[in-house]
């Protein structure tokens, strides 16, 4: 069945049968909702002028208000508000022109004020949605419930001293966006893709750098299972999952764990769990009984956050091109398949790199050289695109030589390897090593004639079995040092061997 439009999942829509978890007692479906904490890209913190940069000496990025000093007051950072609005607009969400900050009260040494300033009842961003690929290749819409702004806490360091905990307040007060999805996700793949697409989106918008190693993005994943279309199960929340892969693993493990318990006649306890990246398992962090009473109430140090509609519209008008739009453009402008376009727009950096490689060159060759050859090499060597030894311009140079017939694909692979090795440009290597493709039919004919003379039995064989042509092409390429234009070689061989 082909889908003509993207179905919007209403809350608790039943999963597709192919997503059901088959088990001895019957089928189960997985219900997932996610809360993603994304650190807002900004120079300073949510309510102070201290630097929000990652790293720095412990306690070197701390204003008096971040340290909870007596009499210090929070003042909202307007740029952070703009970033949240931008993110909301990117998700097609409702921008709440009136929102409010509340205090979430609890004691911990890395929470200097004794409360976190957050938006509990009235978040800045309301409902929106994000398009996500499902495992069958179809696209689903995951609803966004809300986005609110809140302060990050500091960092407790427990392993520096056996008897003491050290506290670093550099992160204390940094702005976080908590992006809450609706429970519209029905599989591990959808969960992972949601996280991936969300990361791509905030990176496009430059509202969060998405650096998961630095904790800039982390997901709390809520998982429950039920019989297809049946009554909802009890959910467990898996805290602080920090990669796309781990999101998928956590959902799979947790769903199976819950199913096992239920099939053994047990019940699920509502609890907060941790995902162990080493074992791929989740384990109890705290149960519902340990839940804090956070005593939320409106922060009296701050006025309600009131946005000017014209200001919001101005941000909307200046939004950059977003992944969904860019994907459509890549398909039409470059003639790429939906799959290829999806891979390229998954990351703003990929897309920009691709556009430079493809500029004025064969778009499909550019795509395969980037996603197959370059990505293959990077994967094998554990590197990110940003660490690639071959830049977009250099790869474009190589693709250009292929596009205009200067070298063929086989030679190009050697050139590619030499580019990595030497850092030289493709044209320089081709020139230096004399790798230009031979289109001189005379020279190719001469080499074919010589081969036919020395291999009469193969000539006869080829006339019987046209598949032998491949062997002949290989021989000619070998004889010409790989530089012969394969199309011309094919043409001449066919004529001389009498194959049509």
């Amino acid at each position, binding site marked *: 069945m082909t889908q003509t439009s993207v179905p919007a999942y209403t809350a608790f829509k039943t999963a597709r049968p192919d997503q059901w978890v088959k088990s001895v007692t019957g089928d189960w479906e997985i219900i997932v909702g996610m809360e993603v904490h994304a650190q807002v890209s900004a120079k300073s913190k949510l309510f102070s002028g201290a630097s929000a940069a990652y790293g720095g000496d412990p306690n070197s990025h701390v204003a*008096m208000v971040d*340290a*909870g*000093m*007596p*009499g*210090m*007051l*929070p*003042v*909202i950072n307007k740029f952070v508000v703009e970033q949240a609005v931008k993110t909301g607009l990117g998700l097609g969400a409702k921008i709440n022109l009136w929102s409010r900050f509340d*205090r979430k*009260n609890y*004691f911990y*040494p890395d929470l*200097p*004020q*004794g*409360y976190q300033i957050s938006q509990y009842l009235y978040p800045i961003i309301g409902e929106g949605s994000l398009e996500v690929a499902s495992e069958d290749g179809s696209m689903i819409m995951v609803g966004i419930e809300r986005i609110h702004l809140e302060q990050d806490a500091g960092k407790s360091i427990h392993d520096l001293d056996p008897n003491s*905990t050290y*506290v670093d307040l550099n992160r204390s007060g940094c702005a976080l966006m908590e992006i809450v999805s609706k429970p519209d996700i029905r599989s591990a793949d959808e969960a992972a893709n949601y996280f991936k697409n969300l990361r791509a989106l905030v990176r496009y918008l430059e509202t969060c750098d998405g650096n998961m190693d630095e904790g800039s993005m982390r997901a709390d994943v809520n998982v429950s299972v039920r019989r297809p279309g049946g009554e909802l199960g009890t959910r467990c929340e898996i805290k602080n999952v920090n990669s796309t892969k781990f999101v998928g693993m956590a959902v799979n493990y947790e769903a199976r764990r819950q199913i096992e318990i239920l099939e053994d006649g047990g019940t699920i306890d509502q609890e907060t769990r941790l995902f162990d990246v080493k074992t791929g398992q989740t384990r109890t962090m705290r149960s519902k009984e340990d839940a804090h*009473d956070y*005593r*939320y*109430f409106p922060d*009296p*140090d*701050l*006025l309600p956050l009131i946005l000017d509609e014209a200001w919001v519209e101005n941000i909307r008008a200046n939004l950059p091109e977003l992944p969904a739009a860019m994907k459509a453009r890549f398909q039409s402008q470059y003639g790429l398949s939906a799959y290829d376009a999806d891979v390229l727009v998954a990351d703003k950096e990929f897309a920009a790199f691709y556009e430079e490689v493809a500029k004025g060159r064969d778009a499909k060759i550019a795509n395969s050289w980037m996603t197959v050859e370059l990505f293959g090499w990077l994967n094998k060597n554990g590197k990110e695109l940003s660490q690639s030894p071959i830049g977009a311009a250099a790869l474009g140079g190589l693709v250009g030589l292929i596009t205009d017939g200067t070298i063929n694909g086989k030679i190009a692979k050697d050139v590619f390897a030499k580019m990595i090795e030497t850092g030289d440009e493709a044209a320089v290597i081709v020139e230096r090593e004399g790798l230009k493709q031979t289109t001189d039919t005379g020279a190719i004919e001469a080499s074919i004639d010589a081969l036919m003379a020395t291999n009469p039995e193969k000539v006869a064989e080829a006339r019987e079995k046209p598949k032998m042509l491949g062997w002949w092409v290989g021989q000619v390429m070998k004889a010409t040092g790989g530089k012969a234009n394969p199309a011309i070689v094919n043409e001449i061989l066919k004529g001389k061997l009498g194959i049509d």
Partner: protein
Amino acid sequence: MTKLTELNLHQALSGLAAGDFTSTELTQSYLNSIEAQNASLNAYLVVTGDKALEMARASDARRAVGNAGALEGIPLGIKDLFCTKGVRTTAASKILGEFAPEYESSVTTNLWRDGAVMLGKLNLDEFAMGSSNETSAFGNVTNPWKRKGSNVALTPGGSSGGSAAAVAAHMCLGATATDTGGSIRQPAAFTGTVGIKPTYGRCSRYGIVAFASSLDQAGPIARNVKDSAIMLQSMMGHDAKDSTSLNVAVPDLVAAMAKGVKGMKIGIPKEYRVDGMPEEIENLWQQGIAWLKDAGAEIVDISLPHTKYALPAYYIVAPAEASSNLARYDGMRFGARVEGVDLTDTYEKSRATGFGEEVKRRILIGTYVLSAGYYDAYYLRAQKVRARILEDFTNAWTKCDAILTPTAPSAAFGLGEKSDDPIKMYLNDVFTVTANLAGLPAISIPAALDVDGLPLGLQIIGKALDEETVYSVASVMEQAANFSARP
């Protein structure tokens, strides 16, 4: 030459301007006065003598080059709730330990900008929670006033008891104070001084140790209305460091004093006649009404029907905010810390030892009213009451320009008299809390002495941001009352 401490603030400004004496001399006179009286009154927690004289000399130098500010050379006392850079700030609590902030409050910054001199830090109820200055971790302040023929020590009121006592006893020319439920006005009434709480947002809260953020407001305690106007004008002003600070122009309050009350409508709220109010308070109120009538004002009866809910609402909202504001005193980064066996034990021991009984009581009340299951019944309902009270005033302003009430339900009482009964103590705020809940400006001026020879105050409440009318009325009342008694 009269003793310099006999001059009030605006007279001292004239004397300094005329070159009759220097700020250094004036400051020294006050340091002597403090030296002579503080042991018995306990108004100052810290006397910053060296710093005061240094500031005074700098002030004299500025004046010498014709660069005098509005408070040039005037020695003031600072309530120890205002953070003062490099000077120990305690909020009269043990939990702050030896805390000396690295920053200065915006209000005191404004005063120093205008040339004022700091004499020291003034005692108060711990974290400004109290109405008698008895909850201070550093001992109570004693009111310089005594009942006629009695030696019983009286409270100066609270929480700004140190500020009020120091002004009344001429241990400074004026003092900063703060008012969350009446903490400026009630002590002013108990000590025969003038205290004003301006409109919420007029004075920056930056650098003031927070009690209840939505109610806290700074203001001066002074010897007379004009001194009060001069000080408040310096203290006020928009501050980007406080998000609730109002970005409005600072009015000329001294000029407003001369406007008179002719044709003005003064509201008399019937709900402020509370049960058990002494007859002389009622008589004083009637006297005040008569003075204003004589000066050409029209007296109108008004109703503020939700007044009776104000005190209970206040004692929910203020502790709720306090319970959260005081969470930062956890022994982790500054102040007193008592080591326990683990983190929770350290928290518990530090806070149990560091906070006094009244502060603990309010933290518990505040924690309770914000708890899941109680929030709607207490905090949310109190906020609704607050909205009704504001509405009461909004309705009243269609009938009158300002409201006249007594400041407190009694004169200063004896130390220890009410400290065992928090409810009795809380009743002191019955006439003052409404202005905090509604964010309105309100002043207390000394109006008469009671039968025991103790001062009594009258309160004038004005519209939001209309301090000018408050000062116009206060000035007329001050002239009529002609209050000149001294402790």
